[in-house]
C-alpha cells in the first residue's frame, strides 16, 4: 500500500529513479519500520542547531525510511501541522514518522522550510546514506567522497557499513576512513592502530593528517609518532608512484598532440623538403572546422549534438587538405628547391591565414564544448585522475598514425610517395608523376594537421593564434625523429612529451623547456640526421 501511494505522489521522474534503490530495500523488509516521532519532530525545531542535529540523528539510523524522509525534506516535499511532520499526497496527509494516513485531514498545514545550513546537513547525510545503496558504483562513490570528509559523527554508520558490506574494495575504503577518524581518539593505543593501518592508504589527505602526527606538538605519544613516520614513508612512496604515472600520462597526452602536428610535417618536409611554417595554421583550420560543425549541429541537429566531433573529423580532414592543396598549387609549387624563400613565403601564408581567421571568426578564443563522451575522467588511483578527452586523443593519434602507416606502406600511392622521398629524379624516370605526388602529399600532410586541429579543439583554446604554439615543437619532433620517418616521429613526440612533463614536475615549465631544447641540440649535434633517420634524399 505504502509503496503504491508513494509512487503516485512522485511527479518527477528523476526522483523515482533516485529513490528506486530504497524501494527495493523496502521490499525486502517485512514491515514498515517506524521512525522515532521524537526525533522526527525535531526536524521542525526552533533553532537551526536542533534541526541539524535531528537530521544527523535520522541519518544515523541508516535505514531506507530515514533516507527517504531526508530526501523528501531535501526536495521540499514535507509539511507540518503542529508537532507532526506530514507529507501531502494529493489531499491526503501522511505522518512520516509512522507511515500512516492522518484522518481526518489536520488543519493549519504549513510547508517545512529548509535553509542553507539544514540543506548542507541534508546533503551530507544523504551521501552517508548512499553507502547503503544496492548499486556498487554508487556505494564506492559515496565511500570515496567520505574518505576525506568523514568526522566522528559518522562512526556508527561506518561500523554498520562494515558489518553489512561484502565488497572488499569498499570495506578497505571504509576501514581507512574509520582509521583517519580514529586518529583523534584520546586513547594512544587506538591512535597507534589507526596510524599503522593508514600506511595502506593512497589518499593525499591522509598524508596531511599523518604529517601532523609526526610533530610532537600535536602527538604526545612517541610510539604513535614513529609509527606515523613509518606509515607516512610508505604512503609517500605510493603517492610518488601515482604522481609519476600522472606525469607520464600527461607527457603521453602532450606527445600525442605533438605527434598529430608532426605527422603531417613529416610528410611535407620529408617528401618535398619544404619547411612549411603555415603548418600550425592548418591545425587551426581543423579546429575552426570543428567549431563550425558544432554550430551546425546546435542549430540543425540538436538531438545529435554529442556526436558533432565525429562529424567534424572528415570535415576538418578535407577542409585542411583543400587549403593545403590550394597553397601548394598556387604558391609553394613555384618555390621548390629554394628553401629560404619557401620558409619566408610559408611564414607569410601563416600570417595571412591567421588574419583571415580573425576576420571571419573574430579575434577572441571560441568555445568548443566537449561532448558527454569526451568529458569526465577515469580515476586510476586516488591521486591519478586521467581525463577522458586526453585518453581518447592519445588513441586518436595512434589511429591516425595507423592510417598513415597503411597508406604509406600498403598502397601503391604510398609506394610512390616513399619513392619520391628517396629519389625524386629516379621516381620520375620510372614514370611516377612526381608533381602530382607532391600535391597529394602536401594535401595529405595538411589534412592530417586538420585532424590534429580537431583533437586540439577538445583540450585547448580555439583561436586564430592557436597554431603558433605548436609549429616549433612539431618541427623539433620531426628533426629529432629523423626526416620522413613515421617511427621516428612517434618516438620523438612521445619522448619530448614525457621528458618535458617529467622535468616540469621537478623544475617548472620554463626550466623544462630550456632543458629539452638543450637535449635536442645535443642530440642533433651527435646525430644530425635525427634519431631514426633513413638514408634518403635530404640526408645524403
Amino acid at each position, binding site marked *: 500500500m505504502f509503496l503504491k501511494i508513494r509512487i503516485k505522489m512522485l511527479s518527477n521522474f528523476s526522483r523515482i529513479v533516485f529513490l528506486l534503490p530504497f524501494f527495493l530495500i523496502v521490499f525486502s523488509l517485512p514491515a514498515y519500520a517506524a521512525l522515532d516521532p521524537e526525533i522526527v519532530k525535531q526536524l521542525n525545531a526552533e533553532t537551526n542547531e536542533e534541526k541539524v542535529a535531528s537530521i544527523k540523528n535520522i541519518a544515523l539510523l541508516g535505514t531506507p525510511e530515514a533516507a527517504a524522509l531526508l530526501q523528501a525534506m531535501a526536495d521540499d516535499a514535507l509539511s507540518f501541522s503542529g508537532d507532526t511532520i506530514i507529507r501531502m499526497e494529493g489531499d491526503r496527509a501522511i505522518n512520516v514518522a509512522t507511515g500512516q494516513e492522518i484522518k481526518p485531514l489536520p488543519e493549519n498545514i504549513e510547508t517545512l522550510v529548509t535553509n542553507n545550513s539544514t540543506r548542507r546537513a541534508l546533503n551530507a547525510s544523504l551521501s552517508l546514506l548512499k553507502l547503503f545503496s544496492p548499486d556498487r558504483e554508487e556505494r564506492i562513490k559515496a565511500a570515496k567522497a567520505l574518505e576525506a570528509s568523514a568526522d566522528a559523527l559518522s562512526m556508527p554508520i561506518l561500523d554498520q557499513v562494515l558489518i553489512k558490506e561484502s565488497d572488499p574494495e569498499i570495506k578497505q575504503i571504509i576501514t581507512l576512513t574509520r582509521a583517519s577518524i580514529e586518529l583523534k581518539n584520546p586513547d594512544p593505543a587506538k591512535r597507534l592502530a589507526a596510524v599503522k593501518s593508514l600506511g595502506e592508504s593512497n589518499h593525499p589527505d591522509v598524508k596531511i593528517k599523518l604529517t601532523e602526527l609526526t610533530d610532537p606538538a600535536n602527538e604526545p605519544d612517541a610510539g604513535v609518532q614513529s609509527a606515523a613516520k613509518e606509515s607516512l614513508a610508505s604512503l609517500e612512496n605510493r603517492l610518488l608512484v601515482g604522481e609519476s604515472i600522472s606525469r607520464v600520462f600527461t607527457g603521453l597526452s602532450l606527445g600525442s598532440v605533438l605527434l598529430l602536428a608532426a605527422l603531417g610535417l613529416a610528410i611535407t618536409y620529408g617528401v618535398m623538403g619544404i619547411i612549411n611554417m603555415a603548418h600550425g595554421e592548418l591545425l587551426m583550420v581543423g579546429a575552426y572546422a570543428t567549431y563550425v560543425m558544432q554550430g551546425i549541429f546546435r542549430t540543425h541537429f540538436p538531438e545529435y549534438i554529442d556526436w558533432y566531433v565525429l562529424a567534424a573529423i572528415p570535415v576538418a580532414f578535407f577542409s585542411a587538405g583543400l587549403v593545403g592543396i590550394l597553397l601548394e598549387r598556387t604558391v609553394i609549387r613555384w618555390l621548390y628547391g629554394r628553401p629560404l624563400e619557401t620558409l619566408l613565403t610559408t611564414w607569410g601564408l601563416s600570417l595571412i591565414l591567421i588574419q583571415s581567421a580573425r576576420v571571419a571568426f573574430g579575434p577572441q578564443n571560441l568555445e568548443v564544448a566537449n561532448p558527454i563522451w569526451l568529458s569526465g575522467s577515469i580515476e586510476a588511483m586516488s591521486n591519478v585522475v586521467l581525463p577522458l578527452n586526453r585518453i581518447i586523443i592519445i588513441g586518436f593519434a595512434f589511429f591516425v598514425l595507423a592510417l598513415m602507416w597503411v597508406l604509406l606502406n600498403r*598502397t601503391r*600511392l604510398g609506394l610512390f610517395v616513399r619513392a619520391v622521398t*628517396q*629519389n625524386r629524379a629516379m621516381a620520375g624516370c620510372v*614514370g611516377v*608523376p612526381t608533381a602530382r*605526388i607532391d600535391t597529394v602529399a602536401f594535401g595529405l600532410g595538411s589534412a592530417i594537421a586538420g585532424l590534429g586541429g580537431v583533437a586540439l579543439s577538445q583540450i585547448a583554446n580555439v583561436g586564430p593564434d592557436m597554431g603558433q604554439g605548436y609549429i616549433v615543437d612539431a618541427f623539433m619532433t620531426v628533426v629529432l625523429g629523423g626526416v620522413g620517418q613515421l617511427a621516428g616521429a612517434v618516438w620523438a613526440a612521445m619522448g619530448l612529451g614525457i621528458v618535458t612533463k617529467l622535468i616540469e614536475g621537478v623544475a617548472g615549465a620554463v626550466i623544462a623547456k630550456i632543458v629539452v631544447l638543450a637535449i635536442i641540440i645535443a642530440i642533433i649535434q651527435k646525430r644530425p640526421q635525427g634519431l631514426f633517420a633513413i638514408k634518403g634524399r635530404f640526408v645524403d
Partner: protein
Amino acid sequence: MSDTSVNMAHGMGENLSEPIKNNSILQLSNITVSFDGFRALNDLTLTFQVNELRCIIGPNGAGKTTMMDVITGKTRADSGTVFFNQTIDLSNLSEPEIARVGIGRKFQKPTIFENHTVFENLELAMKVDKRVRHSLFAVVDDLTRDRISDTLRLIHLGEHTEQVAGRLSHGQKQWLEIGMLLMQEPQLLLLDEPVAGMTDDETERTGELFNSLKGKQSLVVVEHDMAFVEQLKSNVIVLHEGSVLCEGDLATVQANPKVIEVYLGR
C-alpha cells in the same frame, strides 16, 4: 604513312646513307657531337634491328657513352637524326618523353630505391597507370604478382623478394636494375657496362640472363669485358673516334688489323 614521307618531311631523305630496313628499331644517321671542338661522335651512322642483341666495344673515348646519351636525349646531336621505330624523331623529345616511348637505359652505377624492398622496386618500375587516384586503391593483383615473380626468376633474385634493396650485393643491385628496366617493358634496352664490378660468377650469370632475352627484347650492350662479349655471341660493333670502325662477330672483329691497331698499337 611510309618511311620515306616521314623522312622527306624532315628534309632528310637524300642524306640517308642506306635505306631504312622495315624492321629497324633505332636508326642513327650522320650523328655528329662536339664538345669544345672535340668530336665525340663523328658522322656516326648505325642501325639496330628489332629483338636483336648488339654489343658495342671500343677503347676509352671512342664515343660509346656519348652515343647512349644522344639516343636517350641527355645530349643533343649537333647534326644528324635519330629515329626510333622508324617514325619517332627522338631529337624533338625530352629525356622523360624518350623514356616513355620505350627506350630504357641502365647506367654504370646501379640506381635503385635502396630503402625499398626488391619487390617494391619492381612494382614501382612496372608499366601501369600511375595516376594518383588510380594508385590509391591499386592492389597487387595476381597478374602483377606473376609478372614480378617472372622477372625475379629471370634476374636471380627470387629468394630476396622482401630484402631491402640497399642490402643486396653490387651484382644483385645491377640485376635488380635490369629487372626494373624490364618491368617498364621498353622496346629497346640500352645497357652501359652492365658487368662492371661484378665477380666472374656474376658476370657469367648476367651473360645467361642476356642470352635468355635474345630474340625477345632489343638490347644494346656497351662493354669492355671481352669474355662477357664472347659469351653473348652477338654481332659486335667497334667504335673508334666517334664512328664505326668495323662490324661483325667477335672473332672476325678481333682479327681485323685496324681493330688490333686501335687497341694495341697506339
